């Protein structure tokens, strides 16, 4: 209470934090131990900083694993400095001077938020806090009933306190809140009974239904968007996106200023599209084949690893239990027998290390074998696809053909129109037509190149990642074995030493 007499507002500082932690941390023997050891701010789970006349939140960024923070009964004016406390579940900011809700975006795990007795007039900036269960906005300055609608997006909200706000004086306050927040269980310290719900539902039936309808539509739209995105992703994974329609063809003519002027020959578009679709279909099927191949490789290699791991774990567990028996013999007075046991155990330990290592080596060999197979197969598959993709050559042929025809027609037309000065126009026309042709060819080439580079990079990336993973796994296992064996040997040596003394 002495803090209250001292009227001077404070900022949270090191000293205050230390004092609070010591007061609130473990007591008794545990407290002694923790004091001796020093307290790590990262490990503190709960912190209470109430009645301290705090004006500014500061110095809290170390408390990364904090789940419960009480800052009530202070003079805080702004919510700030909480960005690092991402594990917070409970935050109490009641009885302060906060005017605007802000700075809470990072606290996505928050379930219980109290802003009781502040000066808030608008409920806002809480969109990321989807886990909210309990919300307290009592004794604030909320005057607009529409603020409640904002709370509809919190699907887990069950308890809400708005008592002591201006909106509570409105006659329809309770029914309005009940109708628009149908999942609410407690409102303003009271259980919402059936009767209230019923009257609320009848009163706002149409309004709520309309709102629900809108929300549903939005949701559906989002889902549709998601599905189409997924589809596109699939196509991208198969490296054949935008080839299932006239997109390539369209793009060929989009960036071709001359082409538009030149009349398009019939048949070209449909033929082009058919070719694209052909590539597209092949791409999808080959993609499926590749995924199946990759999957089968992974299941097999995982199986082998799991199998090996199980065997090794069994061997290690057997050894461990026999070792413990030896360790328990410490009480034996017969020095020689103990010595014998220890040396036997040491021998066993080196044997164990050998067995485990050979098992690991065996696994490495096996995995290498299948990896080689896999590498060969997958590169064959990719090669096959690349070969198939040379269908683009047909596109080019088509384009060439088209170009020739176009040129021919253009010249013929030219001849008809202008009989005399044919030569001076001829160049212009020919240039225009061939420029258009070049653009088209470039487009096709670009698309093909893109496809090829991407599939090759995918393959090399995949193979590299598999290889890296395997190396990592191997290192980990080897270090594990070495670590264990050295631990065992140290222990045995210690035992022997203590015996000799």
């Amino acid at each position, binding site marked *: 209470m002495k803090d209250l007499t001292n009227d001077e507002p404070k900022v949270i500082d090191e000293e205050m934090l230390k004092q609070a932690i010591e007061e609130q941390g473990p007591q008794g023997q*545990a407290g002694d131990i923790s004091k001796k050891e020093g307290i790590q701010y990262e490990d503190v789970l709960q912190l209470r900083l109430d009645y301290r006349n705090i004006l500014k939140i500061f110095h809290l960024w170390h408390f990364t694993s904090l789940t419960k923070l009480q800052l009530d009964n202070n003079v805080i004016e702004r919510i700030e400095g909480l960005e690092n406390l991402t594990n917070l579940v409970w935050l109490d900011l009641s009885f302060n001077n906060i005017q605007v809700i802000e700075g809470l975006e990072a606290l996505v795990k928050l379930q219980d938020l109290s802003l009781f007795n502040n000066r808030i007039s608008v409920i806002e900036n809480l969109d990321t806090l989807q886990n909210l269960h309990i919300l307290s906005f009592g004794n604030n300055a909320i005057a607009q009933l529409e603020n409640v609608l904002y709370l509809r997006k919190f699907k887990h909200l069950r308890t809400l306190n708005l008592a002591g706000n201006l909106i509570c004086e409105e006659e329809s306050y309770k029914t309005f809140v009940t109708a628009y927040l149908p999942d609410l269980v407690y409102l303003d310290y009271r259980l919402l009974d059936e009767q209230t719900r019923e009257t609320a539902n009848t009163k706002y039936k149409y309004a709520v239904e309309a709102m629900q309808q809108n929300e549903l539509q939005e949701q559906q739209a989002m889902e549709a968007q998601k599905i189409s995105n997924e589809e596109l992703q699939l196509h991208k994974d198969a490296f054949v996106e935008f080839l299932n329609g006239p997109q390539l063809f369209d793009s060929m003519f989009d960036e071709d200023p001359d082409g538009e002027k030149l009349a398009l020959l019939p048949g070209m578009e449909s033929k082009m599209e058919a070719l694209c679709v052909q590539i597209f279909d092949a791409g999808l099927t080959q993609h499926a084949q590749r995924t199946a191949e990759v999957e*089968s490789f992974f299941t097999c290699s995982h*199986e082998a690893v799991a199998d090996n791991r199980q065997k090794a*774990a069994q061997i*290690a567990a057997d050894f461990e239990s026999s070792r413990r028996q030896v360790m328990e013999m410490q009480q034996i007075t017969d020095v020689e027998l103990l010595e014998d046991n220890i040396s036997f155990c040491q021998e066993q330990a080196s044997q164990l290390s050998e067995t485990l290592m050979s098992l690991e080596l065996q696994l490495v060999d096996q995995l290498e074998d299948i990896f080689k197979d896999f590498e060969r197969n997958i590169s064959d598959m990719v090669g096959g696809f690349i070969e198939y993709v040379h269908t683009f050559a047909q596109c080019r042929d088509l384009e060439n053909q088209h170009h020739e025809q176009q040129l021919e027609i253009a010249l013929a037309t030219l001849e008809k129109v202008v009989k005399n000065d044919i030569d001076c126009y001829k160049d212009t026309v020919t240039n225009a037509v061939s420029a258009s042709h070049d653009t088209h060819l470039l487009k096709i080439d670009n698309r093909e190149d893109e496809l090829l580079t991407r599939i090759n990079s995918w393959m090399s990336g995949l193979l590299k990642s598999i290889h890296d993973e395997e190396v990592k796994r191997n290192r980990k*296992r080897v270090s*594990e074995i070495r*670590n264990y064996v050295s*631990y065992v040997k140290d222990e045995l040596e210690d035992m022997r030493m203590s015996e000799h003394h």
Partner: protein
Amino acid sequence: MEVLPEVDCEEDVTITDDEEDDEESSLSNIRITHTVTHIAKPRPQVALSKCPSSYKENSSQEKLMAAMAENFRQQYALLYPDRKALLLCPVNECSVQKFVSTTLRSTLLPYPELYDWEGCASFVADYLSLELLDPPFELPKQLSSPTWVLQTQRGTCFDFSIVLCSLLLGAGYNAYCVSGYATKEMCLLDQSRQECPLLQPQIQDKTEEPKKPMKKYSVKPPRDLHSNFERRQEEKQQAEAEAATLKKQLDAERLQKERERPPPDPLRGLRVHCWVLLLSGNREIPENFFIDPLTGKSYSTTDENFLGIESVWNHQNYWVNKQDCTFGCNEMTFDLGDLSKWEYVLCGQSLSIISDPKTLEEPEDEEEEMDELKVFEMPPSWVTTIDISPADMEMRYPGGMKVIEYRKAKLEKFAPYLLKDGLVTKLTTYKDLDCTKASTIKEWFKHRSDHLDERELHTDSNVTTEHFRPGRSDALKYHRYVTLVPETERQMDFYSHIRTDGLARRIEKPFEMTETFENRTDFLFYRNAVYGKQIKVIRAGEALEQRPLQRVEERFHRDHSKPASKDVAERIFVVSDRRIQVTFHLEDDRIIPAWLNFIKPKEAADSQKAQAFTPQMVSGFQVDPSTKPYTNLQLYEMLVELMREEENVELHIRDSEKEVRSILSSREKEDSNTDLLISIYNPTRNEMARLHMEEKERMAKEKKQRQKEKELDLLAPSQVRLGLPEVLTSQDALQLKTDCLNEFKQQLFNKASLIQSRIEKETEELQKKQLWYQKNYLTMSNEDEDDYLAYCSDAMFRIHVLKMRLIRHKERAPQKYLALEEKLKRHPRLASHFL
């Protein structure tokens, strides 16, 4: 061999209810004092007066049939002088000749178990007891009706077959009675050389798991560096050794069989037997086969126990076998329409059922008599409907029990509710052929209130195993024990899904208890406690004998909500050593788990302070050296938690011990005094249900009675005045009637005068009020005037209503009077006087 108890079988066979009780009481000695004999008592006499007329005389059709049969017999004797006489028209229990086919009475009884042939066959085998043929190579002289056989529950193999065939025909099977020859064992119902069917191991259909398809990238197994040659040599040696032992075994078996072989039967091939043939076709029977009615077992038609067939019959016809049976029934065909193999007695439509269409045209030119009688059909059965009461059905065995002896085994069967302890089947197996040294005793129970289902006792090891059905409050499922004394070796299995602690099994050994659990929310699945020597513990002022805990081990399944390195897999509390050992689960890609060893600090004693926690009390291994080691605070908190857990664990173990003791004591109680559960749907046995039903009936009756009484006796008051004469004279009746009418008249009159008087009263009051008004109307206030006017209109209305009622009453009164007069005229006690 069929064994029947020495029951004092009542002479008349209709066992009445009160006699049943006597029988039940005498059953306790029955079980011990049975002798090995077949029924040798005199046949119960037929009460001729009780038999229906069809039993005692032949109808005209039956006479005709008998004549035809006689004709057939004569011709048969002429054609086949070497063959034995046929069973065509034996006498029935009333000494009247009846044709065998008419003795069959196809019947379908309303018991679901009798809807298929297995049920029928085992029922007949269980329900009847065998009377041997005397002599065994002659056909019986008498063939009783199935109703009589079922009533007496005894009969020859022919009676058995007739009953079974009747039931099978009723159930829609194509069944025939077969008269022929069989082996001695079959005829005498001697199963002492057969294995008990209950002992035969259940054939488990081994469905081998389909081998996993070799996947494309399956790793190659590591190269095998053993010599193939050595392995082959080893295999060879093993195979040789195996072959040698197998041979030895076979030899021993053969010798054994040799020794057990019965002496040759001098009457082989002559012993007459009767059994049932089921032909394929109906009711999805794929193949012809025989059923032996004495055992209820099925045999293939080529079985070597059946040595020959004379004739077969069903309810429609009779066929004589013309095939050679020198080598048994191996090569018999059962195409009854084949005239070269079977000779029929009756030709006609009935044949079409079983014969080929082409044989249908032929039968005309067979016999002279047949010509005129070609559409003669088998007369309907003379037997009355076969009926078996539910009580008899439940009793099933003659006298409620049956004993069958098998090779090295004895099977006793009892009807449910017959024995006080609910025993229904008891199988004793012996070590020797003479059945003197029992090796196991297996008992099956039904309707026991402690839900005991099965008990098996091995006499060698003295181990008892018990199986329980679900429904016990302690959820016990299985119990294996030597004695019911606690802290000895035993195993208890439980229905774990019923128990709140998920306990599935508890195995006890001296100084050890192991419990396994299923589906616990704390993932515990194993707990093992090791005890030390018993010591005295003083708790709550009582000295208790308690075994101190030395070591407790608990294991847990993986809890995926925690990281593996923080999820405890095993906890070992070494109580005697003051140590606690915690092993964590393996991480996903590790082979060595992390563990921690704690040494418990000493508690505060009288002289010493409690030992403070120091980091030296903890040792352990961490797989990954790069992870942050535990802080001292964390370790201390863990230790405190573990010490608390240790106390909890001890409490759990003591609770388990307590539970074991309570289960054992309750088992002891249940075994010595068990009740049988009676379903509420069993009104004959369920006393409560019956009382309830009776009470209901009584209530209904009383209600009816009361309703009857409610109808008032019009004459009663007048009759009382006359002094309640028993019989009314006509004068009295007249008097009664006039009295009654007069009284009613008076009543009507009284009512009219009452209404009249009310009218007068109302009018008077109104007049008074009017007078008062006329006097004071000048000085009255408006309110009073209103009051007055309201009153006037009210009174006028009342008077009007009363007047209406009076008019109505006057109109109605004569009608009512007449109605009463009419009613009195018809009154049962007066009617006779006014006719």
